[in-house]
C-alpha cells in the first residue's frame, strides 16, 4: 500500500518540518496548479517521472522555470543520446504509487520506489520555499529545501542537488557527470509483467520455442538474480535462502538452470542443427534430478510453513 497524503503530512509534523498546505481541486498540470496556489509563498516545481532503456526510473524535480533537456540529461547520466523518456502511466501507479499528474519527490518514501533515482534542482536551494504535491493532486504544500532534505534523510535518502540546466561536454575524456545517479540495483517490479507470460508460454510450446523464451526470460532475469544472490550470500549461513517458498523465484531458478545448460556456446557449437533434439535430451537427463530436488525442497518448505501456522492457529470462536 502506498503512503498516503495524511501519513506524509503527519510525518512532516513529526520531523518538525515547517510547511504550509493548501487544498484545491485536483490538478494535473503545473499551469492548472498555478491558478490555485498563486497566493502561496513559494515557487512551483515541475516533476518528471522518467525511465531509461534498462527499466531504471528517475524522478526529476525542478523549479517550474528551469529548463530540463531530456537529451542532455540522458547523456550526462551516461545513457546515450536518447536514453531517457517519460515513464509509462502504469509505472506511476506501480512504482511511485501516486496518481497521474502527481509526481513529487515525496513519492520516494514508498518501498516500491526504493530504486528510483531522485534528481533535485539546485535552484530549490536559493528559494525560500518550493511547492510540491504531497502524494495527492488535491493539495499543495510549500516548504524550503532544508525541510525537504530533512524528510529525505529520514527515509534514508541522501539529497543531492544538481544544476539541471548545465550542458557540459560529454565525450571520451569527459565521463558523464551524473553517472552516479543511475540506480545500481536492477529493479524487480518493472520486469514482472514481462516475465509472467514467458513463463506460461514455455510450458505450452514445443521444446525449441520454449528454450528461446526461457533464454530470453533467463537473460532478463539473470542480472537481478545475480544481484539478489550476491546480497543473500552472507545471509545464507544465518537464514535459509528465501526462494525456497517463493513460487516465482522457484520457477525462475529452474528456467535459469535450464537455459544455462542448453544455450551455452558449447552446446550450440557441438550440436548445431541437432540442437533441438539435444536440448530435449539434456533437459531430461541432466536436469531431472536437479529439478526434482528443487521441487522437493519447495514442497517441504511449504508444508513446514503450514505446520508452523498450525501450531499457532486460533480455533474459530463458536
Amino acid at each position, binding site marked *: 500500500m502506498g503512503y498516503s497524503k495524511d501519513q506524509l503530512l503527519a510525518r512532516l509534523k513529526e520531523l518538525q518540518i515547517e510547511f504550509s498546505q493548501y487544498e484545491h481541486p485536483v490538478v494535473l498540470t503545473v499551469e492548472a496548479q498555478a491558478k490555485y496556489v498563486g497566493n502561496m509563498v513559494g515557487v512551483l516545481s515541475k516533476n518528471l517521472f522518467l525511465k531509461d532503456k534498462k527499466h531504471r526510473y528517475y524522478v526529476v524535480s525542478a523549479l517550474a522555470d528551469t529548463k530540463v533537456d531530456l537529451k542532455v540529461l540522458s547523456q550526462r547520466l551516461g545513457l546515450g543520446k536518447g536514453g531517457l523518456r517519460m515513464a509509462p502511466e502504469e509505472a506511476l501507479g506501480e512504482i511511485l504509487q501516486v496518481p497521474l499528474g502527481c509526481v513529487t519527490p515525496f513519492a520516494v518514501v514508498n518501498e516500491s520506489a526504493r530504486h528510483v533515482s531522485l534528481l533535485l534542482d539546485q535552484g530549490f536551494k536559493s528559494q525560500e520555499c518550493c511547492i510540491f504535491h504531497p502524494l495527492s493532486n488535491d493539495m499543495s504544500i510549500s516548504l524550503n529545501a532544508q525541510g525537504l532534505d530533512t524528510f529525505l534523510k529520514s527515509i534514508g535518502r541522501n539529497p543531492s542537488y544538481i544544476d539541471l540546466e548545465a550542458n557540459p561536454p560529454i565525450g571520451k575524456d569527459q565521463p558523464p557527470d551524473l553517472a552516479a545517479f543511475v540506480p545500481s540495483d536492477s529493479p524487480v517490479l518493472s520486469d514482472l509483467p514481462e516475465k509472467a507470460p514467458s513463463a506460461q508460454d514455455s510450458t505450452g510450446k514445443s521444446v525449441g520455442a520454449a528454450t528461446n523464451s526461457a533464454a530470453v526470460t533467463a537473460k532478463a532475469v539473470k542480472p537481478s538474480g545475480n544481484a539478489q544472490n550476491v546480497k543473500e550470500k552472507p545471509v*545464507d549461513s544465518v*537464514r*535459509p*535462502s528465501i526462494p*525456497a517458498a517463493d513460487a516465482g523465484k522457484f520457477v525462475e531458478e529452474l528456467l535459469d538452470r535450464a537455459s544455462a545448460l542448453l544455450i551455452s556456446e558449447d552446446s550450440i557449437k557441438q550440436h548445431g542443427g541437432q540442437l533441438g533434439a539435444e536440448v530435449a535430451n539434456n533437459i531430461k537427463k541432466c536436469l531431472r534430478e*536437479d529439478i*526434482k*530436488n528443487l521441487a*522437493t*525442497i519447495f*514442497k*517441504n*518448505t511449504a*508444508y*513446514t510453513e503450514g*505446520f*508452523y501456522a498450525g501450531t499457532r492457529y486460533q480455533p474459530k470462536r463458536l
Partner: protein
Amino acid sequence: MEKIEDKNQQQEEEQVVNPWEVSAKEGGKIDYDKLIDKFGCQRLDQSFVDRVQRLTSRPPHVFLRRGVFFAHRDFNDILDAYERGEKFYLYTGRGPSSEALHLGHLIPFMFTKYLQDAFKVPLVIQLTDDEKCMWKNLSVEESQRLARENAKDIIACGFDISKTFIFSDFDYVGGAFYKNMVKVAKCVTYNKVVGIFGFTGEDHIGKVSFPPVQAVPSFPSSFPHLFSGKDNLRCLIPCAIDQDPYFRMTRDVAPRIGYHKPALIESLFFPALQGETGKMSASDPNSAIYVTDSAKDIKLKVNKHAFTGGQESIEKHRQYGANLEVDIPIKYLNFFLEDDAELEHIKKEYGAGRMLTGEVKKRLTEVLTELVERHRRARAAVTDVMVDAFMAVRPLPNMFD
C-alpha cells in the same frame, strides 16, 4: 535357518564386522562373499534389479545397478507383496555421533530416498541419540543437539515431508514404542545378546538393554499415529551390512510376538580415500569427503589422499594399465557416476593404460563437487522449524500417494 553369531566364532574369524567395528583381515579388504555366508543373508542378483525396474517403471538406482546394495533378506517377499498391491514402509536410521557427515553416511539415505520415490511408500528415520550418549559417552544434551544437526543433513537428501517421520529416541521412546521394546526384550536372553553383540561383564546395563530400541521401529505398531490399524504392514530396512546383527535378532523375535519379519537390503562399505581396508572414519578428516568440504578441499583430498591403482611411471602405466581392483577413484566413480556408458569407457581406457590417473581423478572431483554442492544448497534450505515439522508426531494422510 539363520545363523546367530557365537562370540567364540567371532574371535576366530579374520575380519570383524559389527555395528561398532569394521576391519578387514590383515592388510586385505573386506570379503563380502564370506560375510554373506557368515551372516546368512542373500546376494541381490541382476534378476532383482530387473524386477525393481519393472515394478517401479523407472531406471533402477545407480547403487542397485552397480551392486552397492548387494545383499538382502526377504526382499523378494516385499516385492511379491508389492505386486499384489500390498504396500510396505521403510525404516532407516543414523547414530548421531558427530556433526561432520561424510559421503559414506549419505549412502543409505540417498538410496532410501530413491526407494521412497520409486515405490511411493512412507519412511521412518530413527536418530539413536541415546545409543551415542551411551557408547560415545556424550552428554544427553550434546547427543540431542547432534541428532537435530544430523537431521538437517538427512532432510537435505530430499525426503518428502508428507511421507517421512524422523524421531529421536530421547523424544519418542515411550507409549506403544516402549511396549514393543519390552515385548522384544522378553524374547532375548542375556546370553544371546552377549553372543550377538559381544558385551562383557564390564559393559554398563544401558548398552545391554539398547538393542530393542533399534529393533522395534521394524514393527508398525510402534507408530500408532502413523500405522494404526495396519498391523500387517511390512517393513523394509535399507542399511549398511554392519547393522545386520540388530536385525538378525529382530527377525528371530518377530514371529514369536506375532509380527512380520522385517526385510533388509544391505550395502557395501564406502571405502576410505586411503584404500579399501575398512570404512570411512569421521575422526580422520582426510579419510573422507565431508558434505561441508569446499570444491577446493575436494580437489585436494582426491589429488593428495586418494589411493590409486595407477603405475609408478607413465611408461609403466601405458604398458600395464591401472589396477582397477584397488583404485579408489574408480571405486568412488562406481558409486557416484550416473552414466553407465561413461564409467565403462573410463574403466576400459584406464585399465588399458590409455587414460592416466590424473584424468580419472579430475572426473571424480567434478562428480563429487556437484554432489556436495547440491547437498549444500538443499541443506541451506532446511530450517529449525522444518526439522520440528519432520519430527512432529503427526499423521501422514498421503503417505502412500
